[in-house]
């Protein structure tokens, strides 16, 4: 499995857009890890005298409303956003796969119920889900994660369903069933691999959208609480003074846009890189596995 992942990454790296997205994503992860130990300025200390200062040696990207260093807050924020993205992708993948498996299950009851659940809840916007969670529990990272995971899990199920149904009704599944392979094994070996390309794309897009949702929900006050650094938080605080200090909002917005673009581009590239039918390099690897096993 690991060599499969390496081959996919090498295939993505081969193209210019792939290089751009992989570099940005690796940079993001690196900065997140570094920010756990060191940031140019400790994010806690504020400097009342140099509020909204423009770029200087001590504060390369200037300071925000409270005089804190914008660069340090952005670096610290990258860790929180990475956490949100990883959690959202993981939970929505689990929810998505569970729903898709239910939808193609042989038992009519299970499949029709899952279809009903998805069709009914899919039209509820993320922010409403976030509100339903935020009102009782108050603003927190969990609100963003829960709201995004449910929303994107349902969306993943809805988008991957046609491929799953196509595979479930295909002749190679009928042949497997006719030769006695159990339903569960068919699901794991035929149906789920068929939706992997769609899932890879959807999860990358959801990762990008969850960062945008984080910035939106935090601005609305139900996302990341005020004390916790995040890109959305940096963008929100600088937004309210845009008429006076327009350039303060430039950096957080730029960082978010670049990272989300990288995630979307990565998603586009994954569509072909992950599918052995489209990516010949994946096929060559499996044949060696064939020989070995």
């Amino acid at each position: 499995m690991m060599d499969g992942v390496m081959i996919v990454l090498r295939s993505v790296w081969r193209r210019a857009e792939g290089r751009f997205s992989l570099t940005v994503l690796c940079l993001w992860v690196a900065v997140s890890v570094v920010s756990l130990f060191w940031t140019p300025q400790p994010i806690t200390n504020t400097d009342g005298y140099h509020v909204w200062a423009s770029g200087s040696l001590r504060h390369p990207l200037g300071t925000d409303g409270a005089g804190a260093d914008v660069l340090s807050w952005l670096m610290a924020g990258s860790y929180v956003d990475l956490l949100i993205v990883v959690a959202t992708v993981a939970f929505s993948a689990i929810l998505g796969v569970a729903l898709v498996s239910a939808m193609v299950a042989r038992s009519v009851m299970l499949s029709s119920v899952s279809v009903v659940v998805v069709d009914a809840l899919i039209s509820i916007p993320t922010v409403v889900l976030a509100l339903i969670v935020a009102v009782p529990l108050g603003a927190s990272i969990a609100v963003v994660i829960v709201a995004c995971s449910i929303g994107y899990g349902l969306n993943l199920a809805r988008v991957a369903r046609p491929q799953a149904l196509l595979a479930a009704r295909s002749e190679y599944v009928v042949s497997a069933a006719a030769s006695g392979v159990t339903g569960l094994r068919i699901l794991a070996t035929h149906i789920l691999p068929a939706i992997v390309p769609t899932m890879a794309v959807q999860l990358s897009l959801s990762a990008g959208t969850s960062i945008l949702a984080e910035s939106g929900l935090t601005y609305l006050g139900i996302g990341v609480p005020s004390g916790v650094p995040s890109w959305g938080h940096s963008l929100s605080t600088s937004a309210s003074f845009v008429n006076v200090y327009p350039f303060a909002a430039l950096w957080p917005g730029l960082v978010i846009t670049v990272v989300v673009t990288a995630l979307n581009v990565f998603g586009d590239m994954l569509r072909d890189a992950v599918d052995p039918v489209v990516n010949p390099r994946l096929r060559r690897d499996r044949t060696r596995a064939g020989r070995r096993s």
Partner: protein
Amino acid sequence: MRFVVRRLMLFVVALFGMSILVFAALRVLPGDVASVMAGMNATPQQIARLRAQLGLDRSLGRQYVDWLASLLHGDLGTSVLTGRSVGSQVGSRSSVTFPLILAAMAVAMALGIPLGCEAVLARSPHVRALLHAASIVAGSIPALWGGLLLIMLFSRGSGLVGILPSQGFPQDGWHDVLSCLASLALPALTLGIIVGSGLMRYTRSSLGGLVSSGFIDMAMACGMTRRRAVIRVGLRLAAPQLVSVIGLTFAQMITGAMVVENLFALPGLGAGLIADVGNRDLIAVQSQLFMLVAFFLAMGFLVDILHRALDPRLGKEGER
């Protein structure tokens, strides 16, 4: 027809389910609703009076049934803070939010669908690549930042071009239509571009898949150019899915709409709801939240019906 009835039942069941969820969400509050609403320094008597006033002393089941009954009569309850009925608040706020959403949707469709087609049909590969890259970047801009950029560019006062208001909404509502539209212009543009990019990407991928299909070959064999065939036949074939995606982006747009309303200080549903949540006006929040959920479930219902109507093949299956 059978499909419509089944889908209607699904709508009612989902509505009922969500009403329980919304009701329960507000009841799982750490501590008691009344004490939270009355604020930190409220005396026990004030809390007790508030509890009685809101009928919180009744059993949960009783409260739920009363709330549901009042909803059915169109009474959304009265807000404790402002004393005005929630219904009237929702009415005035939606007169701002819905025009904003419709305008944004119009911008999204006007930008998204034609550019999506062009991203597939443009003769030179560079144009196609550029359009695709633009749609990805436009889709990656946070609504907040997009709004800020437009404010920097166009807003009266500090903007470079300074032709459009960047804050607020005329107090007397839609009497002065022109200034209302002007104040909605920037927010609608912000939202429209972001949603439009998603629509554009979807149009591009669904048309891209159809370009070499047998249906396009047939249309070309009858005498159409590839471009005309893809637009005339391709779009028509992709229409059912496109409608579903439009319905879905309409729902996802609300997150952005709330952000934009707050940024541009528009007294809309989003800004109002967030304000109510802010000052813990839970009864108002509960009803408004439910109204929003009901609206989007109805949206989903309508979109499914339209999707089914647009594609006779699906329709036929249901009947036969």
